Protein backbone atom coordinates (compact mmCIF):
# COMPACT_ATOMS: atom_id res chain seq x y z
CA UNK A 1 0.00 0.00 0.00
CA UNK A 2 2.88 2.33 0.71
CA UNK A 3 3.79 1.90 -2.92
CA UNK A 4 0.69 3.91 -3.81
CA UNK A 5 1.62 6.89 -1.68
CA UNK A 6 3.77 7.73 1.36
CA UNK A 7 1.11 10.14 2.63
CA UNK A 8 -0.99 9.03 5.61
CA UNK A 9 -4.03 11.30 5.75
CA UNK A 10 -5.62 9.09 8.39
CA UNK A 11 -3.01 10.22 10.93
CA UNK A 12 -3.95 13.83 10.44
CA UNK A 13 -7.59 12.87 10.48
CA UNK A 14 -7.25 11.31 13.93
CA UNK A 15 -5.60 14.51 15.17
CA UNK A 16 -8.37 16.70 13.79
CA UNK A 17 -10.96 14.40 15.25
CA UNK A 18 -9.65 14.67 18.79
CA UNK A 19 -9.44 18.46 18.61
CA UNK A 20 -12.86 18.89 17.09
CA UNK A 21 -15.89 19.94 19.05
CA UNK A 22 -19.24 18.41 18.29
CA UNK A 23 -21.96 20.72 17.16
CA UNK A 24 -19.70 23.42 15.77
CA UNK A 25 -20.27 24.07 12.12
CA UNK A 26 -23.07 21.53 11.94
CA UNK A 27 -25.24 24.15 10.29
CA UNK A 28 -23.30 23.48 7.09
CA UNK A 29 -24.72 19.95 7.00
CA UNK A 30 -28.21 21.45 7.09
CA UNK A 31 -27.79 23.78 4.13
CA UNK A 32 -29.64 23.16 0.89
CA UNK A 33 -26.31 23.26 -0.96
CA UNK A 34 -24.82 20.52 1.15
CA UNK A 35 -27.87 18.29 1.00
CA UNK A 36 -28.11 18.53 -2.77
CA UNK A 37 -24.45 17.69 -3.11
CA UNK A 38 -24.71 14.86 -0.63
CA UNK A 39 -27.75 13.21 -2.18
CA UNK A 40 -26.41 13.44 -5.69
CA UNK A 41 -29.74 14.79 -6.96
CA UNK A 42 -28.13 17.50 -9.04
CA UNK A 43 -26.03 14.99 -10.96
CA UNK A 44 -22.70 16.09 -12.40
CA UNK A 45 -23.67 19.76 -12.16
CA UNK A 46 -23.67 19.59 -8.38
CA UNK A 47 -20.68 17.30 -8.02
CA UNK A 48 -18.24 19.79 -6.49
CA UNK A 49 -18.84 21.56 -3.19
CA UNK A 50 -16.40 24.21 -2.01
CA UNK A 51 -16.44 25.54 1.56
CA UNK A 52 -14.56 28.80 1.55
CA UNK A 53 -13.37 30.75 4.54
CA UNK A 54 -10.39 32.57 5.98
CA UNK A 55 -7.70 30.89 8.11
CA UNK A 56 -8.82 29.82 11.53
CA UNK A 57 -12.58 29.85 11.01
CA UNK A 58 -12.74 26.10 11.43
CA UNK A 59 -13.11 24.75 7.88
CA UNK A 60 -10.92 21.78 8.67
CA UNK A 61 -13.01 21.00 11.70
CA UNK A 62 -16.35 20.75 9.94
CA UNK A 63 -17.80 17.48 10.91
Amino acid at each position, binding site marked *: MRWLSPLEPSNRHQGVRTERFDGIGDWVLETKEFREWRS*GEGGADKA*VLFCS*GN*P*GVGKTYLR
Partner: protein
Amino acid sequence: MIDSLCDQAAKEDIAVAGLYCDFVTQQDQTITNMLGAILKQLVGRGDIPEHLRDAFQKGKKEFGGRGLRLPDLMGMLKVTIASLPRVFICIDAVDECLPKYLPGLLGSLRDILQELPETRIFLTGRPHVKQDIDKYFIKAVVIPINPNADDIRSYLEMRLDMDAEPDVMNEDLRADITRIILERISDMCVRAFGIPNLSNDTYLPMVARRFLLVSLHIDAILGEVTIRQRRRKLEEMTQGNGLGDAYTGTLTRLKAQQGNKSILGLKVLMWVLYSERPLRAEELRHALGVEIGSVDQDIENIPTLRTILASSLGLVVVEASSSTVRLVHFTLQEHLSSDPTLFNSPHSAIAEVCLTYLNFRCVRALSPTLRSAPATSPLLEYASCCWAHHARRGMTENAKRLALRLLDGFEEHISSVPNGPGRW
Protein backbone atom coordinates in the same frame (compact mmCIF):
# COMPACT_ATOMS: atom_id res chain seq x y z
CA MET B 1 -17.13 16.12 7.30
CA ILE B 2 -15.38 12.86 6.64
CA ASP B 3 -16.82 11.39 9.82
CA SER B 4 -20.40 12.39 9.12
CA LEU B 5 -20.09 10.77 5.69
CA CYS B 6 -18.49 7.70 7.21
CA ASP B 7 -21.33 7.39 9.72
CA GLN B 8 -23.69 7.18 6.80
CA ALA B 9 -21.34 4.96 4.84
CA ALA B 10 -22.22 2.15 7.21
CA LYS B 11 -25.90 2.50 6.31
CA GLU B 12 -25.67 3.22 2.61
CA ASP B 13 -23.09 1.75 0.35
CA ILE B 14 -20.68 4.62 -0.15
CA ALA B 15 -16.90 5.03 0.04
CA VAL B 16 -15.11 8.07 1.47
CA ALA B 17 -11.53 9.22 0.95
CA GLY B 18 -10.04 12.28 2.61
CA LEU B 19 -6.88 14.30 2.17
CA TYR B 20 -5.41 17.23 4.10
CA CYS B 21 -3.18 19.60 2.21
CA ASP B 22 -0.70 21.01 4.62
CA PHE B 23 1.70 23.86 4.19
CA VAL B 24 4.31 22.25 6.37
CA THR B 25 4.66 19.01 4.44
CA GLN B 26 3.69 20.32 1.04
CA GLN B 27 6.97 19.23 -0.57
CA ASP B 28 5.80 15.62 -0.24
CA GLN B 29 2.39 16.44 -1.58
CA THR B 30 3.00 15.75 -5.22
CA ILE B 31 0.05 14.97 -7.48
CA THR B 32 0.84 11.26 -7.53
CA ASN B 33 1.29 11.11 -3.76
CA MET B 34 -2.02 12.90 -3.18
CA LEU B 35 -4.00 10.81 -5.66
CA GLY B 36 -2.20 7.69 -4.40
CA ALA B 37 -3.35 8.49 -0.86
CA ILE B 38 -6.94 8.70 -2.09
CA LEU B 39 -6.65 5.42 -3.95
CA LYS B 40 -5.08 3.80 -0.92
CA GLN B 41 -8.09 4.69 1.22
CA LEU B 42 -10.61 3.54 -1.35
CA VAL B 43 -9.05 0.13 -1.75
CA GLY B 44 -8.12 -0.08 1.92
CA ARG B 45 -11.65 -1.20 2.74
CA GLY B 46 -11.29 -4.70 1.39
CA ASP B 47 -8.89 -7.00 -0.37
CA ILE B 48 -6.41 -5.49 -2.74
CA PRO B 49 -8.15 -5.70 -6.14
CA GLU B 50 -6.58 -7.79 -8.81
CA HIS B 51 -5.94 -4.94 -11.23
CA LEU B 52 -3.87 -3.18 -8.57
CA ARG B 53 -1.92 -6.29 -7.71
CA ASP B 54 -1.14 -6.75 -11.40
CA ALA B 55 -0.08 -3.16 -11.82
CA PHE B 56 2.17 -3.41 -8.80
CA GLN B 57 3.88 -6.53 -10.09
CA LYS B 58 4.23 -5.02 -13.54
CA GLY B 59 5.52 -1.77 -12.06
CA LYS B 60 8.17 -3.58 -10.08
CA LYS B 61 9.54 -5.12 -13.26
CA GLU B 62 9.10 -2.21 -15.62
CA PHE B 63 10.16 0.83 -13.70
CA GLY B 64 12.50 -1.02 -11.38
CA GLY B 65 10.42 0.10 -8.42
CA ARG B 66 10.73 3.68 -9.56
CA GLY B 67 7.26 4.45 -8.37
CA LEU B 68 3.98 5.26 -10.01
CA ARG B 69 3.39 7.41 -13.02
CA LEU B 70 0.37 9.68 -13.09
CA PRO B 71 -1.46 8.09 -16.09
CA ASP B 72 -1.15 4.62 -14.54
CA LEU B 73 -2.34 5.92 -11.21
CA MET B 74 -5.30 7.71 -12.80
CA GLY B 75 -6.23 4.51 -14.59
CA MET B 76 -6.21 2.54 -11.36
CA LEU B 77 -8.10 5.24 -9.52
CA LYS B 78 -10.86 5.29 -12.14
CA VAL B 79 -11.21 1.53 -12.19
CA THR B 80 -11.43 1.52 -8.41
CA ILE B 81 -14.01 4.31 -8.26
CA ALA B 82 -16.10 2.66 -10.96
CA SER B 83 -16.12 -0.57 -8.96
CA LEU B 84 -17.52 1.17 -5.87
CA PRO B 85 -21.15 2.23 -5.50
CA ARG B 86 -20.61 5.93 -4.72
CA VAL B 87 -17.40 7.69 -3.89
CA PHE B 88 -16.91 10.90 -1.88
CA ILE B 89 -13.51 12.58 -2.09
CA CYS B 90 -12.83 15.27 0.54
CA ILE B 91 -9.78 17.53 0.27
CA ASP B 92 -9.05 20.06 2.99
CA ALA B 93 -7.15 23.31 2.43
CA VAL B 94 -6.60 23.08 -1.32
CA ASP B 95 -4.96 26.52 -1.09
CA GLU B 96 -2.11 24.98 0.90
CA CYS B 97 -1.24 22.67 -1.95
CA LEU B 98 1.94 23.86 -3.72
CA PRO B 99 0.87 26.10 -6.63
CA LYS B 100 2.78 23.96 -9.10
CA TYR B 101 0.72 20.90 -8.14
CA LEU B 102 -2.68 22.54 -7.79
CA PRO B 103 -3.61 22.55 -11.51
CA GLY B 104 -2.61 18.90 -11.77
CA LEU B 105 -4.67 17.95 -8.75
CA LEU B 106 -7.80 19.84 -9.85
CA GLY B 107 -7.34 18.66 -13.44
CA SER B 108 -7.17 15.04 -12.30
CA LEU B 109 -10.33 15.47 -10.23
CA ARG B 110 -12.12 16.97 -13.23
CA ASP B 111 -10.94 14.06 -15.30
CA ILE B 112 -12.44 11.64 -12.81
CA LEU B 113 -15.74 13.54 -12.77
CA GLN B 114 -16.01 13.55 -16.54
CA GLU B 115 -15.78 9.80 -16.69
CA LEU B 116 -17.54 9.09 -13.42
CA PRO B 117 -20.09 11.87 -12.87
CA GLU B 118 -21.54 10.15 -9.81
CA THR B 119 -18.42 10.96 -7.81
CA ARG B 120 -18.84 13.73 -5.21
CA ILE B 121 -15.99 16.10 -4.43
CA PHE B 122 -15.76 18.22 -1.30
CA LEU B 123 -13.11 20.93 -1.06
CA THR B 124 -12.23 23.53 1.54
CA GLY B 125 -9.91 26.49 1.19
CA ARG B 126 -9.60 30.21 1.54
CA PRO B 127 -11.82 32.34 -0.69
CA HIS B 128 -9.05 33.27 -3.15
CA VAL B 129 -8.61 29.68 -4.29
CA LYS B 130 -12.11 29.86 -5.79
CA GLN B 131 -10.56 31.36 -8.94
CA ASP B 132 -8.51 28.21 -9.45
CA ILE B 133 -11.43 25.94 -8.71
CA ASP B 134 -13.60 27.83 -11.21
CA LYS B 135 -11.13 27.09 -13.98
CA TYR B 136 -11.79 23.38 -13.55
CA PHE B 137 -15.32 23.18 -12.22
CA ILE B 138 -17.58 25.84 -13.67
CA LYS B 139 -20.50 24.79 -11.55
CA ALA B 140 -18.83 24.31 -8.19
CA VAL B 141 -21.26 25.13 -5.38
CA VAL B 142 -19.83 27.44 -2.73
CA ILE B 143 -20.72 27.62 0.96
CA PRO B 144 -18.95 30.47 2.78
CA ILE B 145 -17.88 29.51 6.30
CA ASN B 146 -17.93 32.24 8.92
CA PRO B 147 -17.90 31.44 12.58
CA ASN B 148 -20.98 33.03 14.08
CA ALA B 149 -21.72 33.86 17.70
CA ASP B 150 -23.40 30.49 18.12
CA ASP B 151 -20.28 28.69 16.98
CA ILE B 152 -18.14 30.64 19.41
CA ARG B 153 -20.65 30.01 22.20
CA SER B 154 -20.59 26.27 21.55
CA TYR B 155 -16.82 26.35 21.45
CA LEU B 156 -16.72 28.10 24.84
CA GLU B 157 -19.22 25.69 26.36
CA MET B 158 -17.12 22.81 25.16
CA ARG B 159 -13.92 24.27 26.61
CA LEU B 160 -15.64 24.92 29.94
CA ASP B 161 -16.97 21.37 30.04
CA MET B 162 -13.44 20.11 29.60
CA ASP B 163 -12.08 22.26 32.43
CA ALA B 164 -9.28 20.33 34.12
CA GLU B 165 -10.19 21.93 37.47
CA PRO B 166 -14.00 21.79 37.60
CA ASP B 167 -13.96 22.57 41.35
CA VAL B 168 -12.57 26.01 40.59
CA MET B 169 -15.78 27.04 38.84
CA ASN B 170 -19.31 28.08 39.75
CA GLU B 171 -22.46 28.89 37.81
CA ASP B 172 -21.98 32.66 37.99
CA LEU B 173 -18.40 32.62 36.83
CA ARG B 174 -19.23 30.25 34.02
CA ALA B 175 -22.06 32.45 32.77
CA ASP B 176 -19.89 35.57 33.03
CA ILE B 177 -17.04 34.00 31.11
CA THR B 178 -19.28 33.12 28.20
CA ARG B 179 -21.06 36.47 28.19
CA ILE B 180 -17.94 38.64 28.54
CA ILE B 181 -15.81 36.79 26.02
CA LEU B 182 -18.60 36.93 23.45
CA GLU B 183 -19.01 40.67 23.98
CA ARG B 184 -15.31 41.28 24.01
CA ILE B 185 -14.69 39.32 20.82
CA SER B 186 -17.18 41.29 18.79
CA ASP B 187 -15.93 44.51 20.38
CA MET B 188 -12.39 43.65 19.38
CA CYS B 189 -13.44 43.18 15.79
CA VAL B 190 -15.29 46.48 15.71
CA ARG B 191 -12.40 48.37 17.22
CA ALA B 192 -10.02 46.96 14.69
CA PHE B 193 -11.85 48.92 11.98
CA GLY B 194 -10.74 52.12 13.67
CA ILE B 195 -7.04 51.33 13.53
CA PRO B 196 -5.40 53.42 10.82
CA ASN B 197 -3.06 52.00 8.18
CA LEU B 198 -4.53 48.59 8.49
CA SER B 199 -5.09 47.28 5.02
CA ASN B 200 -7.95 44.92 4.25
CA ASP B 201 -5.39 42.26 3.73
CA THR B 202 -4.21 42.38 7.33
CA TYR B 203 -7.64 42.91 8.72
CA LEU B 204 -9.63 40.12 7.15
CA PRO B 205 -7.68 37.15 8.40
CA MET B 206 -7.73 38.84 11.81
CA VAL B 207 -11.51 38.65 12.01
CA ALA B 208 -11.31 35.08 10.93
CA ARG B 209 -8.92 34.28 13.72
CA ARG B 210 -11.56 34.96 16.34
CA PHE B 211 -11.53 31.32 17.30
CA LEU B 212 -7.87 31.51 18.01
CA LEU B 213 -8.31 34.59 20.19
CA VAL B 214 -11.13 32.95 22.10
CA SER B 215 -8.89 29.99 22.65
CA LEU B 216 -6.07 32.17 24.04
CA HIS B 217 -8.51 33.96 26.35
CA ILE B 218 -10.03 30.84 27.76
CA ASP B 219 -6.58 29.28 28.22
CA ALA B 220 -5.55 32.26 30.32
CA ILE B 221 -8.66 32.12 32.52
CA LEU B 222 -8.72 28.37 33.08
CA GLY B 223 -5.00 28.47 33.85
CA GLU B 224 -5.76 30.15 37.19
CA VAL B 225 -6.16 28.02 40.29
CA THR B 226 -8.91 29.68 42.34
CA ILE B 227 -12.32 31.07 41.47
CA ARG B 228 -11.21 34.52 42.65
CA GLN B 229 -8.13 34.50 40.40
CA ARG B 230 -10.11 33.28 37.43
CA ARG B 231 -12.60 36.05 37.92
CA ARG B 232 -9.79 38.58 38.19
CA LYS B 233 -8.33 37.32 34.93
CA LEU B 234 -11.72 37.69 33.30
CA GLU B 235 -12.04 41.24 34.61
CA GLU B 236 -8.58 42.14 33.33
CA MET B 237 -9.77 40.98 29.97
CA THR B 238 -12.58 43.52 30.00
CA GLN B 239 -9.95 46.18 30.61
CA GLY B 240 -8.05 45.04 27.59
CA ASN B 241 -5.20 43.16 29.24
CA GLY B 242 -6.49 39.66 28.72
CA LEU B 243 -4.72 38.85 25.52
CA GLY B 244 -1.51 40.33 26.85
CA ASP B 245 -1.59 37.81 29.66
CA ALA B 246 -2.21 35.00 27.25
CA TYR B 247 0.85 36.16 25.29
CA THR B 248 2.94 36.45 28.46
CA GLY B 249 1.98 32.92 29.43
CA THR B 250 2.88 31.56 26.01
CA LEU B 251 6.20 33.40 26.05
CA THR B 252 7.02 31.91 29.44
CA ARG B 253 6.34 28.45 28.08
CA LEU B 254 8.38 29.24 25.00
CA LYS B 255 11.40 30.25 27.07
CA ALA B 256 11.04 27.17 29.26
CA GLN B 257 11.36 24.78 26.33
CA GLN B 258 14.18 22.31 26.48
CA GLY B 259 17.63 22.85 25.03
CA ASN B 260 17.96 24.93 21.91
CA LYS B 261 14.23 25.00 21.23
CA SER B 262 13.79 28.05 23.45
CA ILE B 263 16.70 29.82 21.72
CA LEU B 264 15.28 28.95 18.31
CA GLY B 265 11.78 30.07 19.33
CA LEU B 266 13.09 33.46 20.48
CA LYS B 267 15.18 33.89 17.34
CA VAL B 268 12.09 33.20 15.23
CA LEU B 269 10.16 35.92 17.06
CA MET B 270 13.09 38.32 16.73
CA TRP B 271 13.33 37.88 12.96
CA VAL B 272 9.60 38.12 12.41
CA LEU B 273 9.39 41.21 14.61
CA TYR B 274 12.44 43.14 13.39
CA SER B 275 12.91 42.18 9.74
CA GLU B 276 12.41 45.00 7.27
CA ARG B 277 9.68 43.13 5.43
CA PRO B 278 7.84 39.85 6.00
CA LEU B 279 10.22 36.99 5.29
CA ARG B 280 9.37 34.02 3.16
CA ALA B 281 9.63 30.68 4.91
CA GLU B 282 12.77 29.76 2.97
CA GLU B 283 14.45 33.04 3.84
CA LEU B 284 13.72 32.58 7.52
CA ARG B 285 14.93 28.98 7.51
CA HIS B 286 18.24 29.97 5.96
CA ALA B 287 18.63 32.96 8.27
CA LEU B 288 18.14 30.73 11.31
CA GLY B 289 20.69 28.28 9.94
CA VAL B 290 23.50 30.87 9.94
CA GLU B 291 26.07 30.64 12.73
CA ILE B 292 27.55 34.08 13.12
CA GLY B 293 31.13 34.21 11.91
CA SER B 294 31.13 30.83 10.14
CA VAL B 295 32.89 30.77 6.77
CA ASP B 296 30.40 28.79 4.72
CA GLN B 297 26.79 27.68 4.66
CA ASP B 298 26.01 24.48 6.55
CA ILE B 299 22.90 22.91 5.04
CA GLU B 300 22.61 20.57 7.99
CA ASN B 301 22.19 23.49 10.34
CA ILE B 302 19.03 24.80 8.65
CA PRO B 303 15.96 24.06 10.78
CA THR B 304 12.82 22.66 9.20
CA LEU B 305 9.70 24.78 8.97
CA ARG B 306 7.93 22.32 11.24
CA THR B 307 10.56 22.81 13.96
CA ILE B 308 10.39 26.57 13.53
CA LEU B 309 6.63 26.66 13.96
CA ALA B 310 6.72 24.20 16.84
CA SER B 311 9.41 26.11 18.73
CA SER B 312 7.40 29.32 18.52
CA LEU B 313 4.33 27.63 20.08
CA GLY B 314 1.82 29.03 17.62
CA LEU B 315 2.89 32.66 18.01
CA VAL B 316 3.99 32.75 14.38
CA VAL B 317 2.11 31.39 11.41
CA VAL B 318 2.82 30.93 7.72
CA GLU B 319 0.50 32.83 5.41
CA ALA B 320 -0.06 30.21 2.76
CA SER B 321 -0.98 32.70 0.01
CA SER B 322 2.33 34.57 0.23
CA SER B 323 4.45 31.90 1.99
CA THR B 324 5.56 34.55 4.45
CA VAL B 325 5.98 34.03 8.16
CA ARG B 326 4.00 36.41 10.37
CA LEU B 327 2.95 36.95 13.94
CA VAL B 328 -0.32 35.26 14.76
CA HIS B 329 -2.02 38.57 15.50
CA PHE B 330 -1.02 42.20 15.22
CA THR B 331 -1.55 42.81 18.94
CA LEU B 332 1.35 40.44 19.57
CA GLN B 333 3.62 42.93 17.83
CA GLU B 334 2.70 45.63 20.37
CA HIS B 335 3.10 43.18 23.20
CA LEU B 336 6.57 42.03 22.17
CA SER B 337 7.77 45.52 21.32
CA SER B 338 6.75 46.80 24.73
CA ASP B 339 9.30 44.57 26.44
CA PRO B 340 12.76 45.96 25.64
CA THR B 341 14.48 43.24 27.65
CA LEU B 342 13.16 40.43 25.47
CA PHE B 343 15.83 40.74 22.82
CA ASN B 344 19.36 41.94 23.32
CA SER B 345 20.09 44.33 20.40
CA PRO B 346 18.06 42.52 17.74
CA HIS B 347 19.19 44.73 14.84
CA SER B 348 22.87 44.03 15.35
CA ALA B 349 22.13 40.30 15.65
CA ILE B 350 20.27 40.41 12.32
CA ALA B 351 23.02 42.51 10.73
CA GLU B 352 25.64 39.99 11.82
CA VAL B 353 23.65 37.12 10.31
CA CYS B 354 23.20 39.01 7.02
CA LEU B 355 26.90 39.91 6.85
CA THR B 356 28.03 36.40 7.76
CA TYR B 357 25.77 35.14 4.99
CA LEU B 358 27.14 37.57 2.40
CA ASN B 359 30.66 36.52 3.38
CA PHE B 360 29.89 32.83 2.95
CA ARG B 361 32.29 31.15 0.56
CA CYS B 362 29.38 29.86 -1.54
CA VAL B 363 27.89 33.37 -1.84
CA ARG B 364 31.24 34.98 -2.65
CA ALA B 365 31.68 32.39 -5.38
CA LEU B 366 28.56 33.66 -7.18
CA SER B 367 29.24 35.63 -10.31
CA PRO B 368 28.27 39.34 -10.10
CA THR B 369 26.80 38.98 -13.60
CA LEU B 370 24.00 36.65 -12.43
CA ARG B 371 20.64 38.17 -13.21
CA SER B 372 18.74 36.61 -10.36
CA ALA B 373 19.50 35.02 -7.01
CA PRO B 374 20.07 31.27 -7.30
CA ALA B 375 17.49 29.12 -5.51
CA THR B 376 20.27 27.73 -3.33
CA SER B 377 20.78 31.16 -1.71
CA PRO B 378 17.29 32.30 -0.69
CA LEU B 379 18.53 34.82 1.85
CA LEU B 380 20.78 36.62 -0.64
CA GLU B 381 18.29 39.28 -1.64
CA TYR B 382 17.26 40.15 1.91
CA ALA B 383 20.83 40.14 3.24
CA SER B 384 22.06 42.36 0.37
CA CYS B 385 19.27 44.89 0.68
CA CYS B 386 18.93 45.07 4.43
CA TRP B 387 22.24 44.45 6.19
CA ALA B 388 23.11 48.14 6.18
CA HIS B 389 19.71 49.14 7.48
CA HIS B 390 20.05 46.78 10.44
CA ALA B 391 23.69 47.73 11.01
CA ARG B 392 22.75 51.42 11.24
CA ARG B 393 20.34 50.61 14.03
CA GLY B 394 22.70 48.40 15.94
CA MET B 395 26.42 48.29 15.26
CA THR B 396 28.78 46.00 17.15
CA GLU B 397 32.51 45.41 16.79
CA ASN B 398 31.74 42.04 15.30
CA ALA B 399 29.34 43.53 12.73
CA LYS B 400 31.98 46.12 11.83
CA ARG B 401 34.57 43.40 11.24
CA LEU B 402 32.16 41.41 9.09
CA ALA B 403 31.18 44.53 7.12
CA LEU B 404 34.81 45.38 6.44
CA ARG B 405 35.41 41.86 5.20
CA LEU B 406 32.42 42.19 2.85
CA LEU B 407 33.53 45.61 1.54
CA ASP B 408 37.04 44.30 0.91
CA GLY B 409 36.80 43.23 -2.73
CA PHE B 410 33.18 44.39 -2.84
CA GLU B 411 33.25 45.11 -6.60
CA GLU B 412 33.59 41.35 -7.15
CA HIS B 413 30.62 40.59 -4.88
CA ILE B 414 27.22 39.76 -6.31
CA SER B 415 25.45 42.25 -4.03
CA SER B 416 27.54 45.19 -5.37
CA VAL B 417 26.06 45.14 -8.85
CA PRO B 418 23.69 48.05 -9.63
CA ASN B 419 21.01 45.71 -10.91
CA GLY B 420 22.12 42.92 -8.63
CA PRO B 421 20.29 41.44 -5.65
CA GLY B 422 19.51 44.83 -4.18
CA ARG B 423 17.42 45.77 -7.19
CA TRP B 424 15.73 42.51 -8.02
